[in-house]
């Protein structure tokens, strides 16, 4: 029998602790993700997907906002390319998230990068970046950070899947009067506001929010893109102006 060196055991313990810390830190957002999952599960069944199709969608697609955006299009029998384009636009924010993850994941092999990337939805991303912000750059991509991330993904992913299934099973039994859809919005407010830590970020978010409302009528959810470009542009300009004093 091979005995592991004490240093090895120590490293394993650190990873395990980081994994649990990530799971624990993600509990509030996992509950938010659970509400979102139920809403999405109900919406899938109400859009006429069979239970099998709905389960397949939740297991594979794993992107609540995109799923909710395309369901009305599926009901309306929109062409598949319109559906996929709409989902892509709604998911464009993940492009930004993925770029933000590069400094932390760059040392991992491709398959692991892609697994972590696939699992990182809005909530896991918000928890990880908020956590990592306070840690020194030398810690970037350390095993602890990766295992913390795995913990947040594990929490949000498993709760999402279970709650989606619950939504699919319960379907029409959940009264629309509860307004569960709104719980999704409230939970997003809860994770977004703590990500604002300076004035340019605050102003940028306000601009993005206003543009998103004004451009909400654009086809293919393009208002979302306009909002992100406008908000980020304003935030950067403000930050440059501040740096110059």
């Amino acid at each position, binding site marked *: 029998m091979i005995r592991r060196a004490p240093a090895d055991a120590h490293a394993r313990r650190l990873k395990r602790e980081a994994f649990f810390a990530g799971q624990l830190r993600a509990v509030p957002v996992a509950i938010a993700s659970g509400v979102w999952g139920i809403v999405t599960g109900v919406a899938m069944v109400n859009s006429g997907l069979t239970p099998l199709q709905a389960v397949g969608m939740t297991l594979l697609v794993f992107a609540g906002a995109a799923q909710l955006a395309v369901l009305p299009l599926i009901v309306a029998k929109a062409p598949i390319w319109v559906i996929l384009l709409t989902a892509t636009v709604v998911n464009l924010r993940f492009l930004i998230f993925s770029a933000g993850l590069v400094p932390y994941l760059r040392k991992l092999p491709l398959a692991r990068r892609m697994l972590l990337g696939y699992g990182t939805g809005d909530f896991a991303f918000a928890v990880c970046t908020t956590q990592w912000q306070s840690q020194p750059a030398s810690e970037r991509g350390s095993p602890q950070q990766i295992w913390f991330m795995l913990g947040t993904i594990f929490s949000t992913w498993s709760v999402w899947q279970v709650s989606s299934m619950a939504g699919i099973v319960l379907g029409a039994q959940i009264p629309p009067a509860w307004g569960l859809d709104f719980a999704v919005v409230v939970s997003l*407010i809860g994770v977004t506001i703590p990500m604002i830590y300076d004035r340019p970020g605050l102003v940028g978010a306000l601009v993005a929010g206003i543009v998103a409302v004004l451009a909400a009528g654009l086809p293919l959810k393009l208002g979302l893109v306009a909002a992100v470009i406008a908000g980020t542009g304003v935030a*950067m300009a403000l930050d440059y102006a501040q740096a110059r004093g």
Partner: protein
Amino acid sequence: MSDFEIWITIIGLTAVTIITRNFFLIPGDALRLPPRVEHALRYAPVCALTALVTPELFTVHGTLALSLANPKLIGGLVAAVTIVVTGRTLLTMALGMVAFWIARAWL
């Protein structure tokens, strides 16, 4: 849509998730972002999430609803204040929903 078309759509949507979430992770170390882009990355996620939220809050059935008679606005306001004051996500969800339900029952 036929069963086959639905499954094609689901597979396509899966590809969309995989590609968008990994877009910059696929090149990985080979990718060196220009400083200007790295700078933008500090602000873009918050802007993206905010842009996801505000249309839900400020519009009802696609039209602007800025009055306090919009229960979603009340719920959102209470949620925002709660997270700023307490920093607690669950409390934010609970109070935001309660405010939304009360406003909806009253208005």
